[in-house]
């Protein structure tokens, strides 16, 4: 039995993490994998740190990723990436949207934003792919598609081809957003291809 793959999505409530994790989950299911995904709703969604945990393999039991076992960390906000350092291992792939969203203590002027937060990851020899997902999404025609740019950038690390994702965007995304999401996906994929 192949080992279970673990994808950790991180960011801030409202960044489109749920859609990104759904597209990825459907792609894995299309490829014949079993999968489980864990989300947190309620209090945690009001602008706080959020994660989605996606696991796939022949048969998935636990919906939660163990610390030290995330194969991919896909982060939608710069400093939130570093929050999940204990989930990484030496071979983890880390993909980061370089957008910065100030947490309350930074917005209030009490402390500075930790602009070098990714150093805590690269210091351990883990490679980090930085993606200016907002700019890329804007060029594709819609800043809100930044999450799909990120899915595209991650797609080269997963065992499914482009056609699988295109099929999912065509069937799962409302028609008026399809075109721009397909473009955003392709632009994201180009970064890591």
């Amino acid at each position: 039995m192949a080992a279970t793959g673990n994808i950790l999505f991180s960011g801030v409530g409202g960044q489109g993490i749920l859609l990104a994790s759904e597209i990825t989950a459907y792609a894995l299911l299309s490829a014949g994998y079993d999968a489980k995904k864990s989300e947190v709703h309620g209090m945690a969604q009001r602008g706080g740190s959020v994660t989605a945990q996606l696991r796939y393999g022949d048969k998935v039991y636990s919906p939660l990723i163990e610390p030290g076992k995330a194969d991919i960390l896909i982060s939608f906000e710069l400093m939130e990436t570093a929050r999940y350092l204990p989930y990484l291992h030496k071979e983890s792939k880390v993909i980061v949207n370089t957008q910065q969203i100030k947490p309350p203590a930074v917005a209030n002027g009490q402390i500075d934003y930790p602009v070098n937060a990714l150093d805590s990851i690269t210091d351990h020899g883990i490679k980090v792919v930085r993606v200016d997902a907002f700019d890329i999404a804007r060029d594709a025609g819609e800043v809100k598609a930044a999450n799909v740019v990120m899915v595209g950038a991650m797609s080269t690390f997963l065992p499914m081809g482009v056609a699988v994702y295109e099929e999912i965007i065509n069937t799962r995304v409302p028609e008026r957003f399809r075109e721009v999401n397909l473009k955003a996906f392709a632009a994201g994929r180009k970064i890591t291809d």
Partner: protein
Amino acid sequence: MNTNSLWMSGNEAIAMAAYEAGVKVASGYPGTPSTEIMENLSKYEGVYTEWAPNEKVGLEVAIGASFAGVRALATMKHVGMNVAADPLFTVSYTGVRGGLVIITADDPEMHSSQNEQDNRNYAYAAKLPMLEPSDPAEAKKMLKEAFELSERLDTPVLFRITTRISHVKGIVEKGEMMHSQAECGIEKSPAKFVMLPALARNRRKVVEERMIELTTIAENGEYNRIEEGDTKRGFITSGVSYLYVKEAFPEAAVLKLGMCWPLPENEIKAFAATVDELFVVEELDPFLEHHIKAMGVACRGKDCIPNQGELNTAIVRASIDPDSVAELFPPADLPMRPPNMCAGCPHRGVFFNLSKMKDVFVSGDIGCYTLGFLPPLSAMDSCVCMGASVTIAHGMSKALGDAGKGKLISVIGDSTFMHTGINGLINSIYNDSNSVLVILDNRITAMTGQQNNPASGCNIKGEAANAINIEKLCEAVGVKHVEVVNPHDINACKTALKKALELDEYAVVISRAPCVLLPEIKNAENIPYLTATENCSGCKACVKLGCPAISWTPMTPEDAVAKGYKEKQKGYAVINEVQCNGCGQCFALCKFDAINRKGE
């Protein structure tokens, strides 16, 4: 995934199972992690669904439907079962006509709750069977079985899920439609349904006989199964903990309990006899462990496995095999990112004013507005349970006497007021309280994700419904001073609060403005406010609102001079145009003409 398979959350799967089971009436009060069950069930044809004002009401509605001979469902979060406990303990005696299932969604780790009570204890205390699935697919299958069991044994069935079932997605199979074995209609069975002492004593015996029958069912392996494996260590487990055991110790022998009450004593003893060492793995209380030990079976459990918070594979493995722990990268030192009230949230206007009243005790309640506790507002001094804001302030007023005059404010949302705030208000009037009640009426149950409530004017499906008029209700129970304010008008809000505190009688202030996440507000044309940064004096009045759309840009003295500010100015405020919802609270606070509506 085949064509019969769906990718669904546990709550979506449970809603589908309720539909397939032939549920005709379902009632509940929103509460994380249970909320999406009712939301999803309301989309199916042929099922009557409603949001009840609280869980006791919801359960009683479901009991009524069961007495009328249809399958009925009540949903609640763990703490909701405390509210519903009164009917729960007696419906155990009456039994059912149509199948009745009561879902409790527990929240180990308190992701969105004020405590992490383990509601398996209710099954023991109320003498009811409890089923406990491990994942969405099993939840779907098991809920349908729960309705059959309910009718077969004439018993309400408790169904326990946790956050990692409710909010986990997995592959779920579509199933066959079922229907109740009972007939819908009025059937008078006073010996069964009228629980006055003489009749209840008879039903009390029935409950014990039923528990014996249930134990036989548990022994027969309908819900429980042994998975053979390495007998050096054996595991007894249930719910989501089963999944962690399967990953941490894939080779081990496991007794998986799908029915966590009553327990199959013979099966447990037989399983224990086959293994060298027995571990009981369960989240929260040593519920199984205590009952298994009471059978005289030696086992280990909470001596090594935490009794607080969620478990996961790593915790289970490390608890049992401490030597197996792999070294992890240390956590990075980062600022916290707690949840916050949204940009434009009407609650902020009230809490900003409360934050200035340092000698006032703010008795808080459960909802988005509990976030008023967090800095920079830090304007909540207690929060216990739904409705307790009103009653705790009253209790303090009686304890403090004159020393509490003008210093006690309770703060409650519209939905929480409907839930259990009204009774407290009646008590405050009846027993002549000397405190002020602020009702934060944002027209919706916001924290759980925008559910309608009796004051919203819409039902669960979003159709027009009778709306309770909060001010008339307050007047009807005898409140003489009721004032409605717009919380975005910071200064008017301050005046209303001060006036209410100064009065010699109980006063209610209704802070009324819709939640910014309501679709009609979110999709309405929004004209944001912008900072004229050149006018900003760096006073931070707006920053102290704690609005996520407002941030502080620090400056060095050189920066300040270069940008044309006074050398001693330490920074300036900036409004993020995309995030701003145009509420105007910051505009009302700015004395330097540095904030203006876009285009004005």
